[in-house]
């Protein structure tokens, strides 16, 4: 009668773990009189660890390509995406624990479950095989992030939250419209079925184009590509630093991976239609992000613009619309995650308590006050600027190479020239830190744990710059999307 789908939960185990541990955290927060951040951290970390472990096991998944009624992919792309997001989340909660302990008034312990929830949305979105799941996962991560952005209740935090929320909701509507159009064009919401429909005769080209337009808006908003980027500086600046660190990296990763899946699979037959759009968005993002960052005086805001530019670079890699470009973009995401998490981590430590010292002038003479922080920040900034031997360099070369192979060398030229402008503002921070003497008295946060995390990130940044082969093999395996 009713043919129930066979329930294979293996490929969604990571999500299940994340949600389960998030609920554990919620319960703990509800039960405990005065919740201990360390316990929260441990709960979250174990959730992440379990999720990561179950993801890794999925690398050699031998079951069906899609499970749970064909809504979830069990491919390697999903594995890599999940691992990336989970790793970012681990740093996010680590930062968060530290930040929560030192900020006044103390935000609530729901931070940790929310991060896990957001992470579950992100892991789900990269694994999604059905646009409706993509949409739901997008909402999960968005809603969590809206809350996280406003979690401290500070004025800036609130403002950021409301801006993020209003624009995010509007962009979700666009995205959903895109999903509707895609459904209208192909009579399906399965990503692979869409591709088949569009490459065959059953698809409706014109409606599919509309779908493409709306989906681009939705994704471009999430990855903060110009002109859908405008929330980014305000939100990154206003959100609590660990949240900024977390969302600037993980959202971008998740949204890009989902974008790759949707555009390189579902809309693959429309490649010639959407690559010019991506091209323009990439160019605009690179230029606007790089140029406007020059005028910034707040580090978080500057890094926000930088992330806009970085989004442009990743989009550059996607213009090639093949697995080379995908693996280049994935590498870029990994590198971007490491260096941006690192940079925001330094920002958090320099800010000391809460958000007191995020203006560039706080970095004056940092090298004298804390050589380690200054050194780490230099590594991250140089990597963001794309200077060898850091991961940022290899990443940039990778995406440029992909775009160039596809014949988009004018975009590469725009990118390289904008990199020069970008180098200027990255260097400015280096100048302030290393080449000027400190003025006034600032105290950095002396904590050890975040420093260890930063050293790990810096190590990764350099290691990936020197031996990118460590992960390029994985990424190449993962970048083959079958349909």
């Amino acid at each position, binding site marked *: 009668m009713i043919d129930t789908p066979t329930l294979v939960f293996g490929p969604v185990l990571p999500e299940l773990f994340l949600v389960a541990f998030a609920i554990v955290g919620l319960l703990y927060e509800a039960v405990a009189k005065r919740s201990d951040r360390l316990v929260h951290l441990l709960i979250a970390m174990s959730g992440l660890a379990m999720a990561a472990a179950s993801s890794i096991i999925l690398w050699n998944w031998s079951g069906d390509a899609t499970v749970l009624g064909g809504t979830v992919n069990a491919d390697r792309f999903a594995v890599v995406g999940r691992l990336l997001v989970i790793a970012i989340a681990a740093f996010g909660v680590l930062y968060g624990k530290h930040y929560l302990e030192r900020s006044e008034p103390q935000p609530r312990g729901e931070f940790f479950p929310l991060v896990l929830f957001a992470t579950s949305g992100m892991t789900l979105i990269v694994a999604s095989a059905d646009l409706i799941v993509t949409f739901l996962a997008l909402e999960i991560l968005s809603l969590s992030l809206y809350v996280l952005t406003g979690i401290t209740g500070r004025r800036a935090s609130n403002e950021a939250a409301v801006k993020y929320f209003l624009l995010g909701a509007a962009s979700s509507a666009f995205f959903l419209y895109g999903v509707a159009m895609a459904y209208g064009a192909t009579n399906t919401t399965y990503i692979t079925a869409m591709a088949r429909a569009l490459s065959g005769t059953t698809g409706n080209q014109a409606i599919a184009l509309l779908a493409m337009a709306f989906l681009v808006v939705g994704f471009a908003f999430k990855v903060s590509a110009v002109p859908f980027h405008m929330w980014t500086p305000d939100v990154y600046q206003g959100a609590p630093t660990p949240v900024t660190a977390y969302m600037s990296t993980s959202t971008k990763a998740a949204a890009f991976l989902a974008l790759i899946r949707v555009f390189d699979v579902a809309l693959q037959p429309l490649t010639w239609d959407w690559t010019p759009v991506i091209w323009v968005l990439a160019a605009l993002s690179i230029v606007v992000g790089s140029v406007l960052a020059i005028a910034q005086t707040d580090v978080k805001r500057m890094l926000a613009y930088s992330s806009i530019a970085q989004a442009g670079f990743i989009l550059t890699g996607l213009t090639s619309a093949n697995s*080379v470009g995908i*693996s*280049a973009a994935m*590498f870029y995401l990994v590198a971007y995650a490491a260096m941006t998490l690192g940079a925001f981590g330094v920002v958090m430590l320099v800010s000391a308590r809460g958000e007191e010292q995020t203006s560039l002038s706080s970095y004056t003479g940092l090298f004298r006050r804390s050589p380690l922080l200054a050194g780490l920040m230099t590594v991250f900034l*140089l990597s963001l600027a*794309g*200077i*060898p*031997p850091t991961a940022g*360099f*290899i990443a940039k*070369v*990778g995406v*440029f*190479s992909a775009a*160039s*192979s596809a*014949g988009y*060398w004018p975009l*590469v*030229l725009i990118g*390289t*020239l904008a*990199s*020069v402008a970008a*180098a*200027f503002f990255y*260097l*400015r921070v280096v*100048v302030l830190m*290393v*080449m*000027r003497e400190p003025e006034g008295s600032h105290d950095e946060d002396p904590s050890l744990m975040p420093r260890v995390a930063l050293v790990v990130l810096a190590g990764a940044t350099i290691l990936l710059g020197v031996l*990118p*082969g460590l992960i*390029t093999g994985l*990424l*190449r395996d993962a970048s083959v999307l079958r349909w």
Partner: protein
Amino acid sequence: MSAHLLSLTIFLPLVGLVILLLGRGLSNDTARWIALSTALATFVVSMIVLGRFDSSLAAYQMVERASWIPSIGLQYLVGVDGISLWMVLLSTFLFPVAILASWKVDKDVRLYLGAMLALETAVLGTFLTLDLLLFFLFFEAILVPMYLLIGGWGGDRRIYAAVKFFLYTMAGSAFLLVATLFLAAQAGSSLGHVTFDIRDLQAVAHGLPVATTRWLFLAFFVAFAVKVPIFPLHTWLPDAHTEAPTAGSVLLAGILLKVGAYGLIRFNLALFPDAAKYFATFVSILAVIGIIYGAVVALIQTDLKRLVAYSSVSHLGFVVLGIFAFTEQALTGGVLQMVNHGLATGALFLLVGMMYERTHTRDLGKMGGLAGVMPWLMGAFLFAVFAAAGLPGLNSFVGEFLVIVGTFAVSPWFGSLAALAVILAAIYLLWSYQRMAQGPVREEHRYLPDVSLREVAVLVPVLSLLLVFGVYPKVLTDRIDPSAKAVVVHVDPQGQPTQVGLVQAQESPP
């Protein structure tokens, strides 16, 4: 070991760098000795390379290859030929000298020396790599340590100069990267696999449409023209030179500028021979303008370092002129001149630095009569001045002469105009020497000390090479010549005047 001699040369400085960065408790002196011995060890290794170099071959030798990042086609590929050989030796020679010359740097010594060693690796990498992308990687990697050296230990406007240096070079290299990737993409479509091996890319570039190669040529050219620097892309140089610390100026003038000229030979000529011929006149005009312009502008400078910087613009013009004459003599002379300029200008900057340590000024108007106060230092200065001015018997002359002769065979006008710079060089160099060393001595300079033993150790190797290479340049030319000839033949396989030869003279008189 011996199979990886070049790799050893490139990465040996990194060993010192790691020790310096990890050694928190190292005293400044220990750090200095570590850096110096690392640099000296590198020099020794490079001398072994020289010893094993087969001067009868034009091709790359001691090639090492390893796959590195197959996903983007990047491989670790190094090799040496007669042109890069001398660039490498020049570098490994100047680095210990520069380290020794900065013995008195007291601020953040470990970082300073670390930056120097990192710079050495990057520079050696650019000279030895045969992979275009790897070259770009090293090319970019040069920027950071140099930027730190200028910005961290430089003069009053050091930050401006450092940032300018960085951005200028980076802007130029933007074009390089685009062209590189474009070329690799072409390789991907014509060879079936993306590669950056310049030997493969030669073939690929050969198959491209003429217009394309011209654009590619220009892209490469811009990148290297900034680095050389070729007029009118030179304005970063005076600032960078002026503000850099002594060792920074030495390395900048001695080595970094050569990276640009080296790139022109290695890539512009080798990859796009036809485009190179097409643009030869244009580039030569720029070079000649640069030769004269640099000299004329140097005439009026009152800051000693600025003056030397502009003289570099002039001298590097010779190099470029030589490169784009496409005769064996001119190209050999150009390469020779690269070495010579490195040594002579390096020596000048060393001396300016030593003088600055004593007088605390570089303003020529605030000096005078120093030859009486410190005869040895000023004597050395005069020696370097005459080397730079192209006095026969000292090194620069041979290079300049070969360039002039080689160019003359192609274009007497360029050759003649270039020769005019010799007059101007004499004027500004002697004028600066006069204002510094001659005339009445200023009261506050009356009791300045002459050279110390350390400074002698710094100067003697450099100055003696100025003489040795002037008297017996065959050491260099014998090894440069085959490679230079190969390049020239590649550019102009059946060109008429590639050779200044004995065509007429062979008809011996009755």
